[in-house]
């Protein structure tokens, strides 16, 4: 398998750590992985994005201009990255605050109401895990135990008590993801 993903959104939405959990999950499943963030001061207040690649083979370029999957978490990101999804690829987004929705016909478009759901779950920190759950449902190549292992690896020891909450959030995301 070879899955090329872009995740983009506001700085505070946990974009980078979602990518990191994905990458770590890949490692747990013996895949090759790469994680390449945008970096620097423009991250401050502005938008952040990360390219994650999971593959059976050695990964060549960690930087891409076309993706199998785009996970887009604010308007700017949709505006910028919708066009970079490969034909037949997947675009997953949260409708919260979105005024111009993605409109391509040659790709699969899915929604996950993660912002609302995380408010409901009374834990803003679960937002990105709900999104991740939605993604994992749509691209089920990762065993869930590897994702949990990846989650563990990517969290510092002192946060391990949060793992159950995160697992729940992932499951919730799997449930609520829906076709646009």
């Amino acid at each position, binding site marked *: 398998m070879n899955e090329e993903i872009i995740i983009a959104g506001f700085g505070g939405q946990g974009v980078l750590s979602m990518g*990191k959990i994905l*990458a*770590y999950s890949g*490692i747990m499943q013996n895949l*090759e*992985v*790469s*994680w*390449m*963030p945008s*970096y*620097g*001061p423009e991250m401050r207040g502005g938008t952040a994005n990360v390219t994650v690649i999971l593959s059976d083979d050695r*990964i*060549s*370029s*960690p*930087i*891409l*201009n076309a993706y199998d999957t785009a996970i887009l978490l604010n308007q700017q990101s949709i505006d910028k990255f919708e066009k970079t999804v490969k034909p037949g690829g997947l675009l997953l987004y949260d409708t919260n605050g979105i005024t111009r929705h993605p409109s391509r016909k040659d790709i699969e478009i899915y929604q996950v109401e993660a912002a609302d759901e995380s408010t409901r779950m009374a834990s803003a920190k679960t937002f990105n895990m709900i999104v991740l759950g939605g993604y994992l449902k749509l691209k089920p190549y990762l065993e869930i135990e590897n994702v949990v292992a990846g989650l563990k*690896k*990517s969290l510092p020891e002192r946060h391990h008590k949060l793992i159950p909450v995160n697992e729940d959030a992932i499951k919730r995301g799997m449930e609520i993801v829906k076709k646009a």
Partner: protein
Amino acid sequence: MGELRLMKGNEAIAEAAIRAGCDAYFGYPITPQSEVMEYLAAEEPHKRTGMVLLQAESEIAAINMVYGAAGTGKKAMTSSSSPGISLKQEGISYLAGSELPCLIVNVVRGGPGLGTIGPAQSDYFQATKGGGHGDYRLLVLAPASVQEMADFVPLGFDLAFKYRNPVMILSDGIIGQMMEKVELFEQRPRNTTFDQSWTTTGKTPDRERNIITSLDLDPAKMELHNRDLQAKYQKMKENEVRFEEIECSDADYILVAYGSSARICQKTVKLARQKGIKAGLLRPITLFPFPTDIINSYAQKVKGFLTIELSMGQMVEDVRLAVNGLVKVEFYGRSGGVIPSPDEVLKVLEQKFIGG
């Protein structure tokens, strides 16, 4: 198998430094490499191995702290990015002139001037030809993966001490900031003995005093020193050339690229082969010494070379010198933090050589 981790290139360098038994790191923050010092600070290496960590007041102070530590035989290192590395040029020239082993990491960003914090490879000339004054060379390693970021730290120290020469790891914002799987080597012990033939650890009664200097007011002696240096560089050329070949053996066209652009070109080769174009990739791992001979030998067989850099054309001169007119050597580069995509490179290859 060593411990598996998902790490940024910059973090891999820091962790590898601790594990390689590095004695001291001196640095000054600059994007996109600040994670090196930040990772070290979080790890408290003085507790793990006794390694010294100090945030210096400037890049110039940092390189001269490295000079001091290296002059006592300690494994010392610093890291920075382009503008900071420019400031270190006098210090680097001194380190080379005084033949001090040490490790200097440049996580290159786009220039000139303040430029951009985006990744670039536009410090190739500076690294390989001597951005400082005088006839000196650094041994330059160009990692193309996070794994190599880690592995080239102990390798760099080994080579630095083998030749008593500063070694540079020439990386860039991509390799520094990306995370990949790394297999970490075991902790190596720090040095406890120091070569008494040259290190300045205090003159004991059993030996003459040792002096670290790059000065000689007598031109004849100074010239001798310069010839010794050249002889050393010659030895590096004979023994330390490193490169990777990907699908070169039957190639009609060879891409030449290092570091992050080699990663991009790797994909280009795949795409080209899919299209039936026999492309290969030659990736210099040591930029000095440069893999001149292998390029020259391919020059007898292939139809052309295409050099890809995140610059306006620097390494391409070394490729041309190696090819020496035998076949066409073309260049394509992007700059300022812009990254060419694999298919963009393929298009260039087709245009320049196949006609498209």
